[in-house]
């Protein structure tokens, strides 16, 4: 008969054996054979070449479908529903190690309850360039390309080169770049760049010159650059990206002589009381500072990302009410062409953007994000709360609430404050690739 004490002893021994089983399993790896395998020094070839000379041609395509519906409350309630079918198409040809042609386009077919036409379609070339080099020392990229210029996350005053501005709500999306020739000379850890940018024409008036140098100093990277174009304000810029512990810190400063914008000023002699003027003989300063920080707890339950950024916009208005309080006059100036919509963009002097996201909450497929963008000068802004569910790489469902606030005519509440609730379902395929081997 088993004595209780003996039973407890045997159970304890069994537990110890079970608990130490993984240790035995680990040690098994070190019981058999030699731990060292000697390789011939001459064996193997460096693996850098075949990345540049892999397949001679690769054609790729992916497909995505976004279904969305939004309820918007302003003075009245409205509903917009739509569907977007999107396909990225790409071509990558590498006839030799030193020559490459790349093209990428986006085909979009849309239908929306808010559009006049039931179905619209668009094909847009997003990238089309040729890569080459001289002696593996000077690297060229010529054609339509996204330009790495500026380090700001939500806003980048230094980046006046790319055609599309950063979307603060989707700051990591690829932006449409200009037609340009990039020359890059790596110098140790540092990089020198020269961009020749075209606005579509190859005349002297249509070309801009933008040199930039990036220096690695300790744990930081400092960029210094300039932008020169006939009939445009010359600009000098400095950028900084560094890290403080696990926090990434970035900053930009821009100095321009004159501005490419036209400005509205009070003018008692004008019938509207305001007038449009150029300010070509003044210096303007813009600057931004921000951070990004990620935190993950030991168990992976709290996977948090925080980002914040402040922007000082020297080309903004001290008193942004000059725009919101004069809608009739501004409409007149827009109609007669003395003012453009680009002149009215970013009218504030002080902006703040921030986001906090909690990815894969408690190791689930659910993520949440809070986002805020504010124009501190006119007191307007927008805030967004969203939650998404992504059970696989190919399916994402999301819901969200967006509120704009501020007085009527302000930057983010031009037609008054609004609240929008939305739901979205995104389906996408993985990329399909067809390759021609060398």
């Amino acid at each position: 008969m088993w004595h209780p004490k003996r039973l407890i002893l045997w159970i304890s021994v069994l537990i110890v054996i079970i608990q130490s089983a993984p240790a035995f399993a680990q040690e098994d790896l070190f019981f058999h054979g030699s731990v060292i395998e000697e390789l011939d020094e001459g064996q193997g070839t460096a693996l850098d070449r075949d990345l540049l000379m892999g397949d001679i041609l690769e054609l790729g395509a992916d497909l995505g479908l976004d279904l969305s519906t939004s309820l918007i409350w302003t003075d009245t309630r409205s509903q917009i529903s739509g569907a977007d079918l999107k396909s990225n198409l790409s071509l990558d040809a590498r006839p030799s190690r030193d020559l490459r042609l790349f093209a990428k386009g986006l085909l979009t077919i849309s239908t929306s309850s808010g559009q006049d036409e039931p179905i619209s379609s668009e094909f847009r070339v997003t990238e089309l360039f040729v890569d080459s080099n001289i002696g593996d020392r000077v690297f060229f990229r010529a054609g339509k390309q996204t330009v790495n210029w500026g380090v700001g996350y939500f806003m980048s005053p230094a980046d006046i080169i790319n055609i599309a501005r950063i979307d603060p709500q989707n700051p990591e999306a690829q932006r449409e770049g200009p037609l340009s020739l990039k020359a890059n000379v790596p110098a140790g850890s540092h990089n020198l760049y020269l961009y020749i940018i075209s606005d579509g024409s190859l005349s002297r008036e249509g070309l801009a010159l933008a040199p930039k140098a990036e220096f690695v100093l300790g744990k930081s990277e400092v960029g210094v650059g300039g932008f020169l174009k006939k009939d445009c304000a010359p600009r000098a810029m400095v950028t900084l990206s560094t890290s403080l512990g696990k926090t990434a810190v970035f900053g930009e400063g821009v100095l321009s002589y004159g501005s490419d914008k036209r400005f509205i000023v009070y003018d008692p002699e004008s019938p509207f009381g305001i007038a449009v003027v150029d300010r070509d003989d003044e210096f303007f300063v813009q600057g931004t500072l921000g951070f990004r920080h990620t935190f993950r707890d030991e168990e992976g339950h709290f996977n948090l990302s925080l980002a914040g950024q402040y922007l000082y916009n020297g080309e903004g208005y001290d008193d942004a009410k000059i725009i919101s309080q004069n809608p009739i006059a501004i409409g007149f100036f827009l109609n007669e062409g003395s003012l453009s919509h680009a002149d009215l963009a970013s009218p504030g002097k002080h902006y703040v953007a921030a986001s906090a996201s909690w990815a894969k909450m408690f190791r689930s497929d659910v993520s949440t994000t809070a986002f805020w963008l504010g124009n501190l000068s006119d007191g307007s802004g927008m805030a967004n709360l969203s939650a998404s569910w992504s059970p696989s790489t190919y399916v994402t469902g999301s819901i969200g609430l967006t509120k704009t606030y501020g007085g009527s005519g302000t930057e983010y509440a031009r037609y008054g404050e609004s609240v929008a609730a939305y739901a979205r379902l995104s389906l996408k395929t993985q990329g399909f690739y067809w390759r021609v081997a060398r």
Partner: protein
Amino acid sequence: MLTLPDARTRKTLGLTLTLIFTVLTCAALGSTPDMGRILATIDRMGDFGARDFSAVMTVITEDPVKGLEKMVVRQFRRDRENKFLMLIQQPEANKGQGYLQDGDNLWFYDPQSRKFSHTSLKESFSGTDAKNSDFKKTSLADDYKVASYQQGKLGQYDVWVIDLEATNNEVTYPYMKLWVTVDNNLVLKTEDYSLTKRLMRTSLFPNYAKVGNTYIPRTMIFTDELVKGKKTQITLTEISIEPLPNSVFTKSYVERVNR
């Protein structure tokens, strides 16, 4: 009749036996080991020095929720300039993502946005149990001091089990425990601890490749000690120490190889 020696004689005899035992133990071990020197030797043995290094890494991650995931990565190292480049080749969804290290700086390249962003060596490598710092040459002698050590056994190998404490905040783990072979200073196993001395990760290095005078783990097994059942196995193939062009360790190269 047998008589016991007096107390003074017994004390002398005891001291003599202790001395003999200590001398014999030291003789058996060679001599008192210099642990700082062992750490420096580990660093030196894993340093490719004037040579470049490239390999293909196959990363298999076993996750209790996601199941098995496979990743193929090209690795390039130039230890003399403290640089490395990791380029993800598979899966297609991550293809083109790259990690470029230059001294204290590490950039992550996202082919979707075509942007480089500063990141940290302490971060996980692409969501696996490996850290970005696992792929650079080690600097144990500079980053850690020996807190204690003892002799032990791991499988068939006599090992030193060495407890380390970080000497700076730049390291990924503030505390580590190493199992190092006594005869040739190879690290077979490590345990990595948090600041609160909680076991975070166990790493096993059951297979090394010796290329010239340099040793590189050919198989690495990282077990996440906080998420039961999660582990990552990395296997190196196509190892080469052929010279690489300077241009490999540049942003330009990362952009050129991307689609």
